[in-house]
């Protein structure tokens, strides 16, 4: 129903990533003039998903033991709705995740069951990646839970460090998130600090290309700091924005149909 923009990866990223900058308005002034934080964050937020998106992406999970590659297709609508379907490897094909608001369901074709992820499992791994279930649902609350400001100028690459501090009284996993955006207002790096103020994980953005009519980093790498040899990479292969997505896409019945 909405515009049709594919962002498969966007869906995931949208879901997974905290804030990614939107490039449209704010990128006009590449001078070392501090950008407007709210605008940058809003853009980051929107970058991979827009009003709606369909994406196809590849995820590579590297651990000291093994390397695993998955191909996914993802649909997003607004901030709250997302559907992710695993297309490969065959063993996991059809496995899908539906997010509606803060609810998350997994559909498992092998046993033909749909299971809602309970709050107690939100910090568990999503499909064996370094992303947590929480990463899939939390991101829409970022601007609500964190106060943000420009922290400092970065020289290499030229850009700005934004600093997000969790608001008092908010319960959550991160106490602070630092985001580096370049002068094109594209994300370069995100650092997540836990409640004890320790750097817990780093996400880097690179391979900037034009996908779905936008220039954006197509390759994202999430590295948990305390687990040497472990990382998850996500690469957008195709991305469409503001595409029409059928109304029933974000429903349990659609989830079980897979694709």
């Amino acid at each position, binding site marked *: 129903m909405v515009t049709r923009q594919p962002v498969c990866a966007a869906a995931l990223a949208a879901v997974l990533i905290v804030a990614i900058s939107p490039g449209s308005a704010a990128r006009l002034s590449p001078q070392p003039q501090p950008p407007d934080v709210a605008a940058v964050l809003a853009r980051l937020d929107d970058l991979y998903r827009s009003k709606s998106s369909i994406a196809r992406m590849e995820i590579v*999970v590297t*651990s*000291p*033991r*093994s390397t*695993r590659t998955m191909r996914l297709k993802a649909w997003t609508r607004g901030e709250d709705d997302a559907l992710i379907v695993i297309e490969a490897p065959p*063993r*996991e094909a059809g*496995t899908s995740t539906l997010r509606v608001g803060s609810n998350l*369901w*997994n559909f*498992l074709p*092998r*046993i033909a*069951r*749909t*299971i*809602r*992820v*309970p709050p*107690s*499992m939100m910090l*568990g*791994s999503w*499909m*064996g*990646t370094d992303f947590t279930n929480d990463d899939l649902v939390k991101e829409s609350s970022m601007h609500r839970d964190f106060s943000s400001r420009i922290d400092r100028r970065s020289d290499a690459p030229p850009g700005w460090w934004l600093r997000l501090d969790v608001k008092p009284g908010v319960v959550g996993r991160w106490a602070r998130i630092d985001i580096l955006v370049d002068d094109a207002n594209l994300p370069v790096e995100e650092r997540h600090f836990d409640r004890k103020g320790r750097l817990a994980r780093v996400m880097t953005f690179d391979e900037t290309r034009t996908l779905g009519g936008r220039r954006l980093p197509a390759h994202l790498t999430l590295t948990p700091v305390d*687990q040497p040899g472990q990382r998850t990479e996500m690469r957008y292969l195709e991305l469409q924005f503001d595409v029409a997505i059928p109304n029933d896409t974000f429903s349990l019945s659609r989830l079980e149909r897979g694709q």
Partner: protein
Amino acid sequence: MIMGARLPTTWRIAWRNLWRNPRRTSLALAAIGLSVTLVLLYDGILRWEADYLVDTITGPMLGHVQAHAPEWRRTRAMDKTMTGSSRAVEALRRDPDVGGVDARVYAPALAALGEEGFAVMVVGVDMAEATRPSRLLQGLKVPLGGRRVLVGRLLAEQMGVKPGAEIAIVGQGIDGSLANDLFTVAALIDTSVDLVNRQAIVLPLAEARELFAMGDEAHELVIYARDPARAGPLAARLRGSSELAGVEVLDWKTAAPGMNDLVELVSVMWVFVLLLVFVAAAAGVANTALMSTFERTHEFGMLLALGTAPSRIVAMILIESLALGVTGALLGTAFGGALVAWAYHAGVDFAKLTGGGPTSLSAWGVTFTMIMRPRLAAIDIVRVVLAVMVTAILASAWPALRAARLQPARALRE
């Protein structure tokens, strides 16, 4: 009489002296005997409690010695496993100091009867080991295998699961792949470990490995020592062994220091009990010795006048007290020992004793039943008899010295 003709004269005289006042001596014997009986009974309960605590703490989950991959205890990460675990298990089972080995897999997962998922801990255990007495699944009659699992009762209540239900288990394989399958609930389990009742789904090791795409590996080897008291030395020895090379090996006291403190506390309580016997025996012996020396002042005067060495009088009085104490202690030991033996075989139900109190008690995440089976070790008896002897000598020292210092002339006039 009992003492036989070959005992030194002093002993025979002392023994005879004791029975010159049969009623007083009998009363003293009864007092000492009763206190020894009580002490042994209490010691027996304490010993049962200490053994029982260790058993309850180590039996189901901890074991006496545990082995893990070095990082596992900190991270609890699925992929921190010990490989080649079946070879290690076989080698350990051949070890003469090892009474049993359970290889386990622990995996966090999502379990669901319908759509609602619940966070669970899937525990794969060696069924043969885990169903032995005082182990996690002691006395379990339900056969597993063929995708049949046990569900902790509290978890089952929360999930609305009954035996026969089909549940989905979804987790992450050790290679990061998606692990998911359907299982039938064979039975609900009530174990002594709260965490298991609240969170666990238990299934045979082989099926757990299959579900989580694991090979011949385990997260934990739980090792039971033949002699639980020697868990520390066993852990130290196994740490250096080839089958557990590169693996973290801990005895249960190190793995669960809080639990150990609890046991230590119980095991020093006998000291207070022994104080009790000192007081009771001291009162009994001191009274008897004082009375009997006071009323024999004339007699001692006579003996001294006839040339008896004062040391011999001291010896005689000490021996009287000693004989009194030892006889009382032996009587008490016989009676108390019999009582403990009976209680051990019958089992004392604490709930009945207190008129319908709780039949079990939960603390520190472990449930303790309240059926007492007191038991004694030789050291308990030796300790109490020695305590009585020492008390007897101390309590009669003053009367004995007083008798030895008597002036024969003055004593004779009394």
